């Protein structure tokens, strides 16, 4: 998309269109997994004629077709991988059914030799992607809602007040607006009601009331930090956040499946994140960092993570807009696992996109981004390191590569040499991974897939081939208008025509596919 800005960088239109032809043409040829040599892609190959190029090039790029989704969180769980996984599981089951091996150990040993026993054990027990590794951070906590006396002690200076009625949040908000309640009292009542309502829908109104109080409180009192900490910690306790795990960086762990989740835990956790969003402004750095860590942990929690993605991205906008440097310099403390990095990076919202690149860079390289030159050499160095230290741990490699992908997201390189250098490094990593993308070891083909996609995205972004690709597909347009007419005609016709419509649609579909292919061949 942005590649159109860079047409001037790689003027060799002929060359790139060859590649596109090749990509689009590759439907029915056999798959090969090696990446094309850089020299065949970048301008140094300009001298080659098109014919010569096609003759020499035996590579096939069918896997690059979906390069656009490189950064999507589920990019590797695509259909083809699912098929391969299914195949792998079938193969495995056959091992078991033929009973060639006597003991489980023997099977494991044999499998371990060729495909890596860990991965296959996981496959065998559960073929679904995310269930292999679990992380549970929130639970149905037994923590009790603090009572009025505790709250009084926390918030009130004057302690002989009794209040225990069920006031509704709107009325309370009304009184606050007119400034009819002293702040100390308001704070105690409001936090009490907030804790009580944590699992239901009125909670966000109480949070809004709390925010109002904090803003007034900020100017008049100096123990706000302490109160904020108290509210944050109590809420964390109420959603069952495992305080013992706070001390160690996030790691994914294997656990047995837990008992059923109470439905209101989701709501509680979402309200907790909303509450953190409000408290963040009024906290000191220690509490802020704990909030960021807790938010990240909730995100990777298998039970509630997926429901909280949106609220997480909303929360993360605060540290990003309020104190980005603090976040950057501490983000690596959150977790050392590249898998966690990718989950966090893929859950940041659109408005954080520029910043995401910086976070990804810090996580990938291990230090903060400085200037373009030193950044580039750090990236290269790190790429060398990860390929050297990979040691058959392809899952880690996969997530490292994806983090790298985020770090160079939409990046345009100043010079062709830089692009060449990075592409060459990617190609080297790809070559060090033995086997093809059809290999039984799934993590291996996933990482290869990922590298291939990244390779193509970097290439497209920095050359003029993307507009060329678009032009070819655009040229397919004329058929489209006819179809639209037909559609409207069908829509306005009466019900008896409905049958007809689907029939004609099918016919159009077939004819169209044919046209499409011819257009590509042209």
């Amino acid at each position, binding site marked *: 998309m942005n590649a159109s800005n860079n047409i001037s960088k790689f003027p060799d239109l002929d060359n790139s269109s060859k590649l596109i032809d090749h990509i689009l043409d590759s439907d029915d040829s056999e798959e090969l997994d090696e990446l094309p040599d850089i020299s065949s892609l970048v301008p140094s190959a300009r001298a080659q004629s098109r014919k010569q190029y096609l003759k020499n090039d035996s590579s096939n790029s069918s896997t690059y077709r979906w390069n656009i989704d490189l950064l*999507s969180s589920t990019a590797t769980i695509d259909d083809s991988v699912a098929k391969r996984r299914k195949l792998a599981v079938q193969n495995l089951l056959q091992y078991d059914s033929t009973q060639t091996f006597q003991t489980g150990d023997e099977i494991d040993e044999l499998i371990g030799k060729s495909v890596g026993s860990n991965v296959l054990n996981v496959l065998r027990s559960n073929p679904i992607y995310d269930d292999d590794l679990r992380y549970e951070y929130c639970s149905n906590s037994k923590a009790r809602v603090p009572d009025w006396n505790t709250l009084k002690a926390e918030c009130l200076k004057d302690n002989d007040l009794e209040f225990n009625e069920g006031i509704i949040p709107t009325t309370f908000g*009304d009184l606050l607006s007119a400034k009819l309640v*002293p702040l100390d009292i308001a704070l105690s009542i409001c936090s009490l009601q907030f804790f009580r309502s944590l699992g239901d829908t009125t909670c966000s109104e109480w949070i809004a009331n709390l925010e109002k109080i904090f803003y007034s409180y900020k100017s008049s009192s100096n123990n706000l930090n302490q109160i904020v900490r108290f509210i944050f910690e109590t809420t964390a306790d109420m959603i069952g956040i495992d305080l013992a795990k706070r001390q160690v960086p996030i790691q994914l762990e294997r656990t047995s499946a837990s008992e059923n989740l109470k439905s209101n835990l989701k709501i509680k956790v979402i309200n907790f994140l909303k509450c953190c969003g409000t408290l963040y402004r009024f906290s000191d750095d220690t509490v802020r960092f704990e909030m960021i860590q807790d938010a990240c942990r909730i995100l990777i929690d298998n039970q509630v993570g997926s429901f909280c993605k949106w609220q997480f991205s909303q929360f993360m906008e605060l540290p990003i807009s309020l104190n980005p440097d603090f976040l950057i310099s501490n983000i690596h403390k959150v977790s050392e696992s590249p898998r966690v990095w990718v989950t966090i990076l893929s859950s940041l919202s659109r408005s954080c996109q520029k910043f995401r690149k910086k976070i990804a860079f810090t996580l990938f390289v291990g230090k903060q981004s400085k200037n373009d030159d030193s950044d580039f050499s750090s990236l290269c160095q790190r790429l060398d390191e990860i390929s050297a230290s990979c040691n058959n741990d392809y899952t880690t490699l996969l997530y490292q590569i994806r983090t790298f992908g985020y770090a160079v997201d939409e990046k345009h390189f100043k010079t062709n040499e830089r692009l060449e250098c990075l592409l060459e490094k990617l190609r080297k990593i790809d070559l060090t991974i033995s086997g093809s993308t059809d290999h039984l070891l799934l993590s291996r083909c996933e990482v290869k897939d990922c590298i291939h996609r990244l390779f193509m995205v970097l290439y497209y972004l920095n050359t003029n081939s993307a507009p060329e690709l678009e032009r070819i597909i655009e040229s397919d347009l004329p058929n489209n208008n006819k179809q639209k007419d037909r559609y409207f005609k069908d829509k306005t016709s009466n019900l008896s025509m409905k049958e007809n419509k689907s029939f004609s649609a099918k016919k159009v579909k077939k004819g169209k596919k044919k046209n499409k292919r011819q257009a590509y061949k042209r």
Partner: protein
Amino acid sequence: MNSALKAIIELCIEEDLLPKSLDVLEYLLSTTSIPIPACYIRMCITLLVHPEYPTSSNIQESCNWILQQVVENRSKINFDAWSFENDLSDNDMPKENYLKIFSNQCLFTQDVDYWDLIAYMSSRPPDLERWMSLMDIWLRILEIDAEENGSALMKKYMGEDLCELQDAIRICFSCFTLPQQTMESPFATSMSKAPAKTESRGSNSFEGTSRLANLGAKLLCLIWAMLPKGRFFVVHLTDAFHFLSKLDERFSKLNAKQQDLFFGNLGASNLRYCLSQYILMKGIGIGINIRHTRCEFTKQLTQLLPTSLPKNKIRQKLHLRAWVSFLGSALRESDRNFDKELFYTTLKQLYTMYQQTELVGIDRPMAILKDMLVLLDISKKLSLDKIV
């Protein structure tokens, strides 16, 4: 969006790689500012609630995420996508019209309008949860429509000359009452095989009830925001005035619990402020002059002072609830010259007056009044200087 991207997305759909096409949309939303054509937004809306697509799958999650991102980017919301009009611009149309997700499966090609969807939800169907998650997003769109688009979308839902207004009010109120009958899914007529009819209703739980009530109340507020009013007062014989009288009529038919639910969910809205004035003025039979803007509270309060109760018992209860919400909203809408003493005495007067009536079913509003009184009492006793 250019047609190359459309081609990629639709090729994925065609090849049964739906999650893949959603991935592309997610990618576009998270890295570019390309506006998403209406047809894909409608696709996500459909996928969220269509019974042929399973609940709690990755597809649902992606659709939710995409729609939320669309809402977040509020300056570029494509309101056409959310209207039930099918005359879309070229850019908003898919390339491949024949794909069923754009044609007979699509929610917007069904024979329904927006109010039909709400009516379906108010019958508490088994898939209420799915529809709720869609409506959460839809409400945000309508809120932005009211704030930035002059309620143009809501006007479309209301039809020419507000012909849907009556129906809309009835349907919004059905969110507060128990369902009368089961309703067919909006997709029922277009599905290849009819969905299995389950007798089991959706959640009759507290959570379902309160979320539906919240939806109904918010929609009423959005309709209220759309209706043209006078400069300071709601002008007689206008649609806005008519709307308030209809609400008053419907409201008086709810039972005590439902009435509490109703006012509780109106929140701090302008509708709460105006409706409570309407009910009060009608109850004591004075000329109805409803302010809908910030006003001099003291003046208004003296006009309404609770000297006597309406004769009718039902009206008396209504009156009390209206007082509670009027006092509440008056606090918000009032200006600096707000008379705290007057407010306090009014509150006390009201409380003692109703304490003597021995009416049944006014526990909730009385509890709220008491809370307010207790709080104000405490504040007075403690340190008046603290109250800035």
